[in-house]
């Protein structure tokens, strides 16, 4: 039952929010309560799964592989908890960050349905069901991006929608071809069937289809163009939520399918992943270097950071997978915090344009510190969380003899540092431009959640032990799919 709750809770709350359509205040309160409950449920789930390894529920009591199984292993549970924490922080921030008009046009029901989709995608054990959850979260995100209806919103939404629908089409084609090959869509059953098939080429072809589809959703090279075109158009609260959740679900799907299903031709598929990882890091960070808009710069960094977990997946050892999972949690927290800070800066000075910003260091030291910590963490400076994540990846890369990629990843870290220094110089350090609007006051609704998130990010950096242990356990499960298969299929022959 517990593992259905992360889906049911947002679903019920979304339905309730629809019933409370005309009462924005009730919706706001409901959202906070619901997200707090979600954090509790998912934390409990993580503790439970940590003991057992894998938890399974057969929906409707239809036995796997005939029914739909919900499967939560350590990786899923860890990401579920991170998602819930981000959702709670963003919802608190959104009490001020989301304007009344957006609430009146359905922001909160959409938020709940987005969370339902994300949680569903993280906990399903069936490929077609994964497609359905992806569509649920995409539909919610489509509308969230287009809400507001300004020219930028609409144009961003057009690009976002078309490319993501193409990705869904490819994903569904892959599902169809896989069904034709193996006659099942249950992931555990597929993991058992695929090695016995005498059809290596077809399976690899399907793997590449999935790689392209999830690559678009994760914004990996060369399929990331929708992200910088759309992520800076909605209010920063929505962007923070998207940056924490959406692309990361794509990465999760890659992690799941390329450890459980497509492991027959590792020499080919995972090499492709490595190349993609390197190119993603470089192209993202180079794109960011050219930006002078706070949000657009951060959007390009989302792309760049996607490369690191892909690198961990491509290396395909326990150490590299553990580092990738640790990195994923780190980047979800740090990136969301950075976007929230960008929103605070905009509140203070009325613009996202780095050229027009300035002088925040002397006026708002607190905001400057809130920016600096996740920014340096993103760049990978010790003793922050990004350092340990990248250290793990570098060590794993060197152990696998991937010197070039390690060099690329380190160079990209330096570039990230350059980018963050640029923001620091422009927005915080330099003298404020003369024509600047007077610094406005800042609501504690913005300040406190962001500070909490930064503290959390600091905590997993200063005390990386517990999280690394969890990531290690998750990686071990990923490398031993037979445990997953046995948990789902049980005694089914």
């Amino acid at each position: 039952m517990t593992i259905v709750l992360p889906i049911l809770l947002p679903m019920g709350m979304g339905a309730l929010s629809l019933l409370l359509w005309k009462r924005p205040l009730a919706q706001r309160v409901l959202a906070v309560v619901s997200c707090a409950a979600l954090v509790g449920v998912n934390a409990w789930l993580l503790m439970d799964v940590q003991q057992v390894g894998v938890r399974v529920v057969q929906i409707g009591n239809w036995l796997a592989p005939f029914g739909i199984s919900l499967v939560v292993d350590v990786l899923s549970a860890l990401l579920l908890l991170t998602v819930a924490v981000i959702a709670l922080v963003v919802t608190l921030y959104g009490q001020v960050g989301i304007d009344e008009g957006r609430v009146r046009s359905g922001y909160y029901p959409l938020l709940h349905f987005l969370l339902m989709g994300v949680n569903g995608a993280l906990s399903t054990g069936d490929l077609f069901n994964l497609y359905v959850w992806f569509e649920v979260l995409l539909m919610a995100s489509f509308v969230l991006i287009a809400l507001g209806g300004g020219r930028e919103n609409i144009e961003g939404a057009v690009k976002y929608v078309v490319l993501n629908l193409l990705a869904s089409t490819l994903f569904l084609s892959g599902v169809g071809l896989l069904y034709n090959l193996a006659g099942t869509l249950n992931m555990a059953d597929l993991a058992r069937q695929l090695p016995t098939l005498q059809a290596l080429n077809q399976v690899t072809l399907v793997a590449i289809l999935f790689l392209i589809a999830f690559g678009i959703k994760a914004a990996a090279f060369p399929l990331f163009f929708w992200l910088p075109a759309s992520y800076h158009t909605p209010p920063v609260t929505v962007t923070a939520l998207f940056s924490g959740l959406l692309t990361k679900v794509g990465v999760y799907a890659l992690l799941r399918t390329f450890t459980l299903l497509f492991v027959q031709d590792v020499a080919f598929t995972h090499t492709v992943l490595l190349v993609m990882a390197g190119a993603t890091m470089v192209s993202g960070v180079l794109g960011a270097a050219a930006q002078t808009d706070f949000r657009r710069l951060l959007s390009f960094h989302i792309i760049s950071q996607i490369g690191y977990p892909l690198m961990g997946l491509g290396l395909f050892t326990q150490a590299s997978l553990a580092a990738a999972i640790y990195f994923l949690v780190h980047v979800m927290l740090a990136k969301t915090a950075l976007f929230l800070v960008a929103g605070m800066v905009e509140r203070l000075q009325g613009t996202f344009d780095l050229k027009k910003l300035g002088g925040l260091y002397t006026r708002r030291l607190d905001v400057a510190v809130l920016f600096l910590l996740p920014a340096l963490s993103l760049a990978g400076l010790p003793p922050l969380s990004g350092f340990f994540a990248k250290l793990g990846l570098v060590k794993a890369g060197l152990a696998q003899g991937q010197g070039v990629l390690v060099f690329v990843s380190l160079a990209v870290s330096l570039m990230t540092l350059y980018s963050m220094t640029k923001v620091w110089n422009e927005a915080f350090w330099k003298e404020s431009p003369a024509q600047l609007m007077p610094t406005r006051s800042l609501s504690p609704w913005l300040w406190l959640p962001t500070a909490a998130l930064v503290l959390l990010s600091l905590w997993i950096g200063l005390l990386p032990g517990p999280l690394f242990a969890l990531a290690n356990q998750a990686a071990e499960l990923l490398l031993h799919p037979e445990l997953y298969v046995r948990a789902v299929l049980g005694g089914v022959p």
Partner: protein
Amino acid sequence: MNKPRRVLQRSMMLPVATRYLMPLLLLFSVFLLLRGHNEVGGGFIGGLVAASALMLYAIAESPAALRALLPVAPRPLVGAGLLLALLSGLVAVASGKPFMTGLWIKTPLPVLGKLGTPLLFDVGVYFLVIGIVLWILLTLAED
């Protein structure tokens, strides 16, 4: 795109036909809903038929007339349908079975047939579909 539309003479054919068609179609939609579990039909298709019956009224009269006719607005209908579907799954949990396990009342009733949580789920879907389709189409029609 904001050119004034030409005012057409309203035809009597559609309103008169709708007066008979709409109740029939609504009845048919309930028929589809109830026979759904084992035969062709179900909540989704029943909801679509019901929604198209209502939209027929909106086309024949006006979207505003349909809004006046509906006892509940489309949006709460979506929420209520979703909650109903959710509850139907939770009944099984309350009796210790996995989520959404179908539970049935043993003795079939006349007209309704066998009752069970899948029927409750279908009823939820029925209202959900009516709500969503009307929401989309009325928004488009009133724009």
